[in-house]
């Protein structure tokens, strides 16, 4: 039997002054992963945007659990968002959305 791929959900917060949409934040994370780990690494990360809360500037992404540290490194290395200075902070990481929402009650 083929085992289902394990995933990790990351709650993130954008620190940036300009208005953002969900495509911009996902593109920022994906381009960071691509810049640091290349196309091969980006394909293994298997990133997907799950939820975006524009008023809190917080969002949830999903990635492969084996690539969690690489994705976290790529997120930490982000210094520009949409051409302007900014940062993305990880608020919490979990294996399920339910546990993540418990960890980060404000998202």
């Amino acid at each position, binding site marked *: 039997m083929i085992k289902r791929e394990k995933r990790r959900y990351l709650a993130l917060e954008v*620190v940036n002054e300009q208005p953002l949409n969900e495509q911009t934040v996902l593109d920022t994370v994906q381009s960071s992963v691509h810049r640091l780990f290349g196309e091969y690494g980006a394909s293994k990360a298997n990133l997907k945007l799950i939820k975006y809360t524009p008023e809190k500037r917080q969002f949830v992404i999903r990635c492969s659990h084996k690539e969690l540290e690489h994705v*976290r*490194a790529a*997120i*930490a*290395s982000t210094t520009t968002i949409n051409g302007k200075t900014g940062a993305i902070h990880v608020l919490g990481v979990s294996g399920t959305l339910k546990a993540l929402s418990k960890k980060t009650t404000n998202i």
Partner: protein
Amino acid sequence: MKRFADLHLRVPLEDPSKAETMIQKASALGYNLIGIPLSPHATREQISQLRHICSEAKVDLATRLNFSPRTPNELLQSLRRLRRKFEIIAVRCHTKDVARQAAKDRRVDLLQFSVTNLRKRFFDEAEAELASQALSSLEIELAPILQLTSFSRVRLLSSLRREAATAERAKVPITLSSGATDEHFMRGPRDYAALTTLFDLPMSSALRALSENPWVTVERNRKKLSPDYVAPGIHVVGRKTGD
């Protein structure tokens, strides 16, 4: 629960509001201890003002002094004058002689090397052996990894990979710090730990370098600077008052 420390938060002391913002941000990111580099002529008022800001932000402050001596003699003179005034002494080694002297001197806590000129990174096997005997730590700043781009970052990561492996082999403690001058370059401790995967430092070592290693350095120095300290392993446990 781990207590995290950032021993090199370069807050602008001339701009108190920005300094306060950065200290509050460090606390919000999950740090319990921050080291702020001060001038050798820092006054008690400046230090007490910083302590007040830190206590309001619920974060512990360690006073730090950065040296950039040109010769080993200059280093020794500075250490003689200033060691007992600060909780952390970091030496940025620009020459090999200074690097060797700093590594074998027990008064030096952190060894730093240039992030732009990689020819001036002298942390090799010999340096690591001296540092392991003198209890100095190798300090790796992580903000330059965020600031540098393309080939400069690649070259820096390559040097860091070699140095981290050397330090692990020689059992030299590694201390990870931000070196951030702006809040945009500040990250949480676990994010910094994830960044160290870029130079192949194991996650357990990275977390130790952000928590236990800096705390051990600061607590050891606080003990040494306390009036009850006599010599390594000997300290005053009580004083009898005269009748």
